[in-house]
């Protein structure tokens, strides 16, 4: 074929030119973000932004980082991985931000692996808890960090808490059919096995389903007394109503997907639902956290904790921005590679946990929050409180 040499030449040329223009440039003092601002999960992006902006305001008010004011460049990915990648490139190549924050969905984070590697752009997740976001099958993760929970660590925690509340020790798994829910299954199964616990049934539900009675009947018939739950407020509400229909009341021990909205919609039915997380804005707060809450209320016209539907996510995001700022100071310039290396040096006392250091060089410890900072929260009188402020036990 006569075309072949021509194409070969063209390719070779393109590679040559590309390597010429590949020289590193200083990044801008901006924090990029790709999360959902429209659609059914729009509140996830919008609410995390509250915490991020408040943190950035604090830092800028104190003189910024390395004498520069930080700016936020947030884009909507509509929950679609390909758009998240579009946004990452926009942040990395057009805006030339020094770092990027992640959003709600695990698949969107997984889709970013390659592009982040190619751009050499540090990424910090603040919600999506999928294990594979940080622990890549390749065994290598240079650029992705997280200040949130990790499903592989959450699972043993949830199983342990559920078993403690099931007199017979028989527990069930009930999860949403999404990347997050499905991704958690192996972790939960492994955790149950490790703890010698019988997982009597596994059931799934679809996003936006409104009637889970059939699954609950099967869980009941299997004898599950406590349920490890992966899902979010809307479906949890449907499940509580379905439980009410058939008068079946196992204890629900949920991963962090449930936020404050459940108390609003399910009312009394939410009483006693347990949720794992890193933080709650309800109840008595330490002074620094109270100040953050006040700042968010002030700036975004919030009524109070009831408007913060992702309590852990917002708190994580707040800490993440501060960790980034510290790391930049350590790096000494707006350089992505130096920022990444500085992440391993950062020590910071956040509102969620004490990060000492924030990250370590093992892939496993690209997660800043370790299981000892995981907490259980419980719904009581329609609000989600730290467990020890409720009648449902202590952490």
């Amino acid at each position, binding site marked *: 074929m006569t075309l*072949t040499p021509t*194409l*070969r030449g*063209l*390719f*070779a040329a*393109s*590679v*040559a*030119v*590309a*390597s010429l*223009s*590949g020289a590193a440039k200083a990044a801008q003092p901006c924090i990029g973000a790709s999360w959902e*601002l*429209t*659609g059914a999960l*729009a509140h996830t992006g*919008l609410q995390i932004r509250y915490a991020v902006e408040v943190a950035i305001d604090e830092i800028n008010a104190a003189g910024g980082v390395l004498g520069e004011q930080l700016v936020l460049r947030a*884009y*909507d990915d509509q*929950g*679609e*991985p*390909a758009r998240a*990648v*579009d946004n990452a*490139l*926009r942040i*990395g*190549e*057009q805006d030339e931000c020094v770092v990027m924050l992640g959003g709600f969905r*695990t*698949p969107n984070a*997984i*889709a970013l*692996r*390659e592009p982040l590697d*190619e*751009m050499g752009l540090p990424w910090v997740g603040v919600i999506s808890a*999928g294990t*594979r976001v940080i622990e*890549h*099958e*390749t065994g290598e993760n240079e650029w992705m960090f997280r200040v949130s929970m990790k499903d592989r660590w959450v699972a043993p925690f949830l199983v342990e808490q559920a078993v403690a509340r099931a007199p017979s020790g028989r527990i069930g798994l009930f999860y949403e*059919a*999404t*990347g*997050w*829910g*499905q*991704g958690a299954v192996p972790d939960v199964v492994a955790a149950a096995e490790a703890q010698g616990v019988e997982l009597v049934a596994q059931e799934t539900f679809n996003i936006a389903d409104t009637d889970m009675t059939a699954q609950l009947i099967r869980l009941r018939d299997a004898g599950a007394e406590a349920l490890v739950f992966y899902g979010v407020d809307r479906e949890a509400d449907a499940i509580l109503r379905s439980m009410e229909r058939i008068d079946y009341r196992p204890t629900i021990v949920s991963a962090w997907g449930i936020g404050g909205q459940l108390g609003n919609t399910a009312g009394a039915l939410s009483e006693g639902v347990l949720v794992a997380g890193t933080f709650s804005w309800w109840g008595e707060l330490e002074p620094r956290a109270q100040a953050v809450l006040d700042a968010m209320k002030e700036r975004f016209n919030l009524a109070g904790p009831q408007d913060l539907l992702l309590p852990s996510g917002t708190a994580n995001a707040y800490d993440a921005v501060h960790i980034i700022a510290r790391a930049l100071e350590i790096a000494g310039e707006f350089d992505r590679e130096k920022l990444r290396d500085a992440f391993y040096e950062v020590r910071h006392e956040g509102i969620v946990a004490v990060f000492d250091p924030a990250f370590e060089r093992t892939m496993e410890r690209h997660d800043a929050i370790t299981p000892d900072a995981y907490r259980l929260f419980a719904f009581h009188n329609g609000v989600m409180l730290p467990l020890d402020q409720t009648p449902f036990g202590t952490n």
Partner: protein
Amino acid sequence: MTVSPRLAVGLTLGIGVAVLAFLPYWSDVFGGRFPTSFELRIVLRVMIMAIVVIGLNVLVGGAGLVSLGHAALYGFGAHVAALLALRAGFGFAPSLVAAVLGTALVGAALAYPSVRVRGVYLAVITIAFGLVFVNVLREWVSFTGGASGLAGIPRGEVFGQRLSPGRRDGFSLYYVVLFFLALAFVLQYTLMYSRFGRAMRATAMSENAAQALGVSVIRMRTLAFVLSASFAGLAGALFTNLALFVNYETFQFTQSIQFLLMTILGGAGTLLGPLVGTIVVFFATVLLQAFEEWQTFAFGALLALVLFVMPKGIVGSFEAWLASRGAKQRMRETAEWPHWTPELNAVIQPLENPPAAALELRGLTLRFGGLVAVNKVDLAAKPGAVHALIGPNGAGKSSVINMISGFYTPSEGSIRLLGQDVTARDSAAMAAAGVARTFQNTELFGAMTVLENVMVGFHTRYEANLIQTLIRAPRARWEEARVRREAEALLDFVGLRDYADERAGALPFGHQRRLEIARALALQPRLLLLDEPAAGLTHGEIEDLVRLIRVLAEKGLTILLVEHHVDMIMAVSDHVTVLDYGVVIASGPPSEIQDDPRVIEAYFGHAAPGAAARKAAE
């Protein structure tokens, strides 16, 4: 003025490929940072989507079928490529080919429903298909990774180069995608402006007329679905190589809507529409990010606005505007007709050994439920004769024509054509056997040109296959040129040569009738059925029509004529059969029929007025 499609495609291709090929090197020439990997990725994404939309345009704009599940076909290709690369270690080229072929097969399966249902029913089936596909992807975790998707897909290689999308490692993927986009664009042109594309568009505009010209509607729909799916599969495989991660979320219902929107917004059925539509819609979604939580609203508003203002799409409206200007600029000349030219000897050839009867009906009967529309009709038409079939409204004339042309299946009786039994064949088979027809309410392919209309009539006489046609092999070119010559000769014959590139739907009515006859003649028929050809014509036009029919009969063509204009029947026919209430009430030469009291009664009512009664008595 009108731009020829060939020129438009050539220009777009030349300029487009040059600009896009140069784009990555923009900053090397002009300095600055443009384009960053972000901008290049956006261009890549637009190019990939444009390939899907070109495919969808073949389906929607070509075959007139709506698919609201195209994202699933795109996703199918993406997943085939991803799974083969990830699990079977396939390289770029083999996984791409497998994705195209696999998706084409799915397309063939999807075509099946279109045979039975269409319109909104077909749309529902394609919606359901898309939803099932997404559901399966999400739930078959062990195979597709579920919502976590397939990650870590290895980069493919072409000519030993890793396919890279951006600055860091070169632009090889960019050029590969550009190549395939250009290919898809060219194939769209060679398809749409080939006999297959014409036949496809013909089935969309009038199933009946297409069938009557021997074009199998089922085959054309299947072809359209298969090709459309192939494009989607190709784009899917390219997307996989760009994203290196696939999960179902990219291929959901909203994406199908967006593809359809791109198609309609650009202008369904136009060559440039898919490109324009994809660019506009995609950039709109990027630019509308400025509206933050209002962006979806802004998108909907933009969409509604464009659909209101430009229902034909951007390119379609522009073309219509160009055409409207063109119409004012040039007056076309209607030539005298019929105009016999020597070229026509190749098209209309006399029979060598004509049998005694060209058409023979025996006891032909048609029942609809309890109603007998045609009752034991016998009729024999001699070769080269003009045989008229007349009768009052509702007498069953059209039913007879519809049975002979295969649109209705006779309840009883037989139809013999040139001595061969052809009873109960379908319309395309009747066309193949040599029966051509026109329709009472002219069924032209309105959005096609006059010349294209006639060329559809030649569909069954081509020999070049699909591949030869798409790559414009010499044989296909030669054949196309021959058909064009013969079609032009036919237009000459009916005096419409000067209108060849005019839209058929824009012709004055009389010209539409002539065109329909020319198109029917393109089949090289042995029997021509004319269903009320004079309805709506002026006196002068009817006289011309009479001459045309006589010329055709002299050339040995048998003609069965259904007509109300009795003066015309008397002038043109050799034999007249009169139907009333589905029964033959008289049959004979026109002069006899004219004074037959039964005929007068059938037309006038039994209380014949004085004049008629007197005539009858004479």
